């Protein structure tokens, strides 16, 4: 029983990380319509930044996050402005390959700059254990989890209630018409990409204290984040949260009770099965909605 509870807790905490990474991706995928295969690399960059700020200036991740996040927002804006925007009119497939190129580039740039070493941000507070009834978790993971939830709520509010959110949703649907009615499309794409990148950055900083960083540290997250986004429903931030938690739980449960070597297989299997049952994702709207939204 305790094993089950502990497994579930571990899974949900892990799922929080997935959700955190996935919401940013969701924004980019949903609005800018780019399958960003470099999303994991954005996380990786933030992890390096966290590490260096901690090692060089002893800046705690929970402080440096306020520096890194805006910087990464800017980085996202630059990426959009100089790499993605000129491609905006190309077919989605073409754009995929630009981001793939970007991912190869960033991974290897990190290798060129920092070498293959594994670096860890060892922030003691984050490593302390919090334990209730024999179930334990570190502060670092709990923080990441809570921030994920807060962020998703914030983003949900942003998309549904604010003008910016409505504009982003309109862009997601039909960018040409949005431009026609006077919305500065390019500016909002910069915003969306910047926000998405900032989300990735927040994720990177928060996992810094418990995940080592190396050039390929982010690569693994990209596919998982896509799985989460698709499961949760495109453009659905709450869906990403729940999808992330769900997958985290599936992964650890499968690992503990089936075989750790097969835990990823279980995740992918669940992904494909869910898609078959509900192609629009668990929390996607009605089929009609999904169709309109994804045109």
């Amino acid at each position, binding site marked *: 029983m305790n094993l089950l509870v502990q497994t579930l807790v571990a899974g949900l905490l892990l799922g929080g990380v997935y959700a955190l990474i996935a919401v940013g991706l969701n924004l980019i995928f949903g609005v800018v319509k780019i399958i960003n295969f470099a999303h994991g690399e954005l996380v990786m960059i933030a992890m390096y930044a966290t590490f260096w700020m901690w090692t060089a200036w002893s800046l705690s991740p929970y402080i440096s996050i306020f520096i890194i996040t805006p910087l990464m927002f800017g980085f996202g804006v630059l990426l959009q402005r100089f790499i993605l925007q000129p491609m905006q009119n190309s077919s989605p497939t073409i754009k995929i390959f630009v981001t793939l190129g970007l991912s190869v580039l960033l991974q290897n740039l990190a290798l060129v700059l920092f070498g293959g070493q594994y670096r860890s941000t060892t922030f003691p507070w984050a490593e302390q254990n919090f334990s209730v009834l024999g179930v334990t978790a570190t502060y670092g993971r709990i923080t990441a989890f809570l921030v994920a939830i807060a962020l998703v709520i914030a983003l949900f509010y942003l998309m549904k209630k604010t003008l910016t959110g409505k504009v982003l949703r309109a862009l997601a649907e039909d960018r040409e*018409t949005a431009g*026609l*009615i006077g919305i*500065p499309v390019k500016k909002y794409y910069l915003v969306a990409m910047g926000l998405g990148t900032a989300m990735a950055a927040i994720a990177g900083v928060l996992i810094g204290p418990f995940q080592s960083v190396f050039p390929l540290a982010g690569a693994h997250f990209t596919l998982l984040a896509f799985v989460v986004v698709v499961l949760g429903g495109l453009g659905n931030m709450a869906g990403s949260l729940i999808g992330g938690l769900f997958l985290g739980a599936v992964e650890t449960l499968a690992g503990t009770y089936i075989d750790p070597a097969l835990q990823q297989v279980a995740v992918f299997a669940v992904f494909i099965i869910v898609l078959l049952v509900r192609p629009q994702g668990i929390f996607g709207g009605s089929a009609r909605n999904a169709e309109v939204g994804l*045109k």
Partner: protein
Amino acid sequence: MLQVKNISAYYGDAQALENVSLAVSESGVVALLGPNAAGKSTTLRVISGILPAASGSVTFNGEDITTASPQERVELGLVHVPEGRKLFGTLSVEDNLLLGGYCGRKDRKTGSRLERVYERFPKLKERRNQDAGLLSGGEQQMVAVGRGLMAQPKVLMIDEMSLGLAPLIVKQMFSLVQEIALEGVCVLIVEQHVQNALAVSHHGFIIESGVTRVAGTAQELMESALVRESYLGH
């Protein structure tokens, strides 16, 4: 107020406009007519800035806006309601309207503008929270025009305004256009209902194969042999 001089335009390598000129004044309805593929929609696209003019000029209130962005033009009051309505289907009716008012959002009068649109289209008020994509064609056209009005246009260009609308609605749309024009807006309509269109407009232009062929008052056009022959079929 809006003056289009000798524009030409291309889609890739294919020329769509060769030499189109037109001018509209402060208010009233102006009809832009022509057979299929003449370049009417293309002309509107050039005017609203989504398609660049290869040559020629577009001026608005004396200002040359040939290279201005669509946003700048909307801010100036040049608003385009595209063919096929092009609503944001997953957004509610109200959100669609609000986005139409994006450019004027800073004056904080969006609320009252919204109310006026609802007054004009009470049906939309009923459906304000419904996803626009689920409306019927006629309702969608209302939202499209309403969205255009939200931008407080000085010139409102409506492409294929009555396409796919029930006769009842078509009638409503035509009288609506007249009403809008009475409020000091110039409405430029592209229409296939030539007779109805000329009946409500005071001016008209006929484009054929990317060239302005005829320009004149509605009356003149109604009486011209060309129009009777090629558009009215009698």
